[in-house]
């Protein structure tokens, strides 16, 4: 399937997982390459942990296959797989001290005593827990426990490390620090990381690629830059960063631009490959949404300034459209503000808009899949 130079180390093909009658993971296809930092990102309950647990071997797919290093692992138990997990709640052994916790996997592999000693000490240094060998987990802080959990997994030199929201329990500052350390460790050791989080900022800063999941579906896989600047679905556009999503239909097309009619006005975008009268979504990042008191060529799109909010170095402006929809615009804090209540022209650089087809055509073009989610409103799907 994949003939790229990179080696695929984890491959999920058509993986489905049902709990009772609930389908939590749906037709998941994903290739993860050796040495890559891949993040599974998505809202709570979308199936991230379940996916990770299937790779680790704690759950088995209802359908589909999982390959580790090219080998179907359907009959492999967790202890027979060359992957290790850092659990969300650390799951340290409460009756063992730090040293014994870290040495656990090596003891199971019957590694020689001197080598265990050497490798555990090396690991303790790496995660900066020097001098804490004899501490019990109950005597450690969250951040320290987290390091033990990472060391305990890494000491086995797994091919793949699975991390389930490893920083979830830490405060913001420690979290930021650990993010850097984790990324550094991953680079240094060249281990494949499959990292679960629902913090989009964490995902964007740490990952080589991000896989965005929603309701058990994989919505998009791509580099942070791709998913941020070229979201493929409305959900991704909305979930990664903030977005203004406006529905419209194609009124007129010229060689290099499209005129779009929306409920609240008209605008232009620079896109190709759409049909006349097709219904589309425009996705405009707040930093790309511009306001002007003067008319703008190609745009007839007006709204009323409702509110200004200062967030550090930027200023957020809320604009209400005639149909009630709220748009967000971001401007540098030093820019002059348009008074609240003013009616303004809303516009953008036509090249800075991401266009998405409506769901029927693009997002779930597999009919079978959209049948699965009938009974939900459109809002839930996206």
């Amino acid at each position, binding site marked *: 399937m994949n003939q790229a130079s990179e080696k695929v180390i984890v491959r999920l093909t058509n993986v489905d997982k049902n709990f009772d009658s609930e389908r939590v993971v749906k037709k998941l296809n994903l290739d993860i390459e050796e040495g890559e930092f891949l993040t599974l990102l998505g809202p709570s309950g979308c199936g991230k942990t379940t996916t990770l647990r299937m790779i*680790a071997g704690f759950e088995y797919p209802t359908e589909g296959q999982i390959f580790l290093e090219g080998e179907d692992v359907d009959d492999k138990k967790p202890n027979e797989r060359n992957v290790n*997990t850092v*659990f969300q709640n650390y*799951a340290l*052994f409460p009756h063992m001290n730090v040293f014994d916790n870290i040495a656990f996997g090596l003891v*199971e592999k019957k590694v020689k005593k001197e080598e265990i000693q050497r490798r555990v000490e090396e690991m303790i240094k790496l995660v900066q827990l020097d001098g804490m060998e004899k501490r*019990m987990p109950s005597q450690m802080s969250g951040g320290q426990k987290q390091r033990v959990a990472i060391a305990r997994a890494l000491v086995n030199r797994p091919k793949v490390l699975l991390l389930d929201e490893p920083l979830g329990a830490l405060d913001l500052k420690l979290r930021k620090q650990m993010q850097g350390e984790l990324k550094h460790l991953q680079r240094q050791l060249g281990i494949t990381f499959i990292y679960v989080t629902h913090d989009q900022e964490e995902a964007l800063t740490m990952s080589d690629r991000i896989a965005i999941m929603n309701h058990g579906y994989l919505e998009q896989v791509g580099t942070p830059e791709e998913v941020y600047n070229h979201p493929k679905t409305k959900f991704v556009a909305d979930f990664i960063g903030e977005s203004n999503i406006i529905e419209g239909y194609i009124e007129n097309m010229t060689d290099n631009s499209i005129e779009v009619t929306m409920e609240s006005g008209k605008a232009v975008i620079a896109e190709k490959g759409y049909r006349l009268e097709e219904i589309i979504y425009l996705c405009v990042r707040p930093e790309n949404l511009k306001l002007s008191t003067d008319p703008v060529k190609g745009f007839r799109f007006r709204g009323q300034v409702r509110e200004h909010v200062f967030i550090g170095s930027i200023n957020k402006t809320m604009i209400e459209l005639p149909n009630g929809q709220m748009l967000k615009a971001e401007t540098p804090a030093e820019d002059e503000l348009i008074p609240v209540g003013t009616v303004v022209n809303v516009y953008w650089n036509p090249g800075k808009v991401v266009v998405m087809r409506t769901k029927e055509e693009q997002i779930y073009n597999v009919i079978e899949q959209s049948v699965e989610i009938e009974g939900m409103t459109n809002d839930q799907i996206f």
Partner: protein
Amino acid sequence: MKKRRKVREFKPYSMFYACLVYLFLYLPIFVVIAFSFNTSKINITFEGFTFEWYWKMFENRQLMQSFGNTVIVAAVSTVFSVIIGTLCALGLYKFEFKLKNLISSSLYIPIVIPELVFAIALLIFFTSIHVSMSMVTLIIAHVTFSMPFVVITVRARLAGFDKSIEEAARDLGANEFRTFMRVTLPMISPGVISGGMLALTMSLDDVVVSFFTAGPESTTLPLKILGMVRKGVSPDVNALSTLMIFGTIVILLTSTLIQGRLEKRM
């Protein structure tokens, strides 16, 4: 801040009250201990100090034999109760199956039904399958009534058990058996030990069930004492009781110590 008072100060009247409670609990025991050193044969007046009854007790072959029986029955039944009870608790924790609630609550029946009824039921059961009463029936009977206590204590321990800790062990390469030995068992061991201690003490002083299920050769110490006091409480019974009290205290202290150690580690 003159009027500042310590919280939870022990006031004189609560002290007095506490003394009364302890007196009520322990005075009878002190009387027994005191009279075991009494030179007089009658438990009314204290005439002088002697170790005579202790020597007499050790010379009493029947008494010593029933003591031996008690120790054997208690030890063997405790071992079986602990093994079966722990496995039972683990099974109830790990697996989901039909009628699980019914099965788990039926475990408590031996605890709640009157002991006499339970003892007679055992007797009828053994005779109906033509098994004559012996050490074996006695041990089986003791296991049936003490095993549920092990189940209760181990289940209590498992209630706060984080499943991902076992998963972590599997993840790090331990198979089911190794996971049990290195992770599960050490973590539930405080529950296993307190269950075992309960089983041991229940077995040591059981009278009712033993009375119906012991064979002629397997009389236990409590049964023997019961037989002896029919003819009045003699000083050697006092001596024996005193020794049993100390034995119990020793067991209790060791188990508290071990448990304290185990729990402090977690």
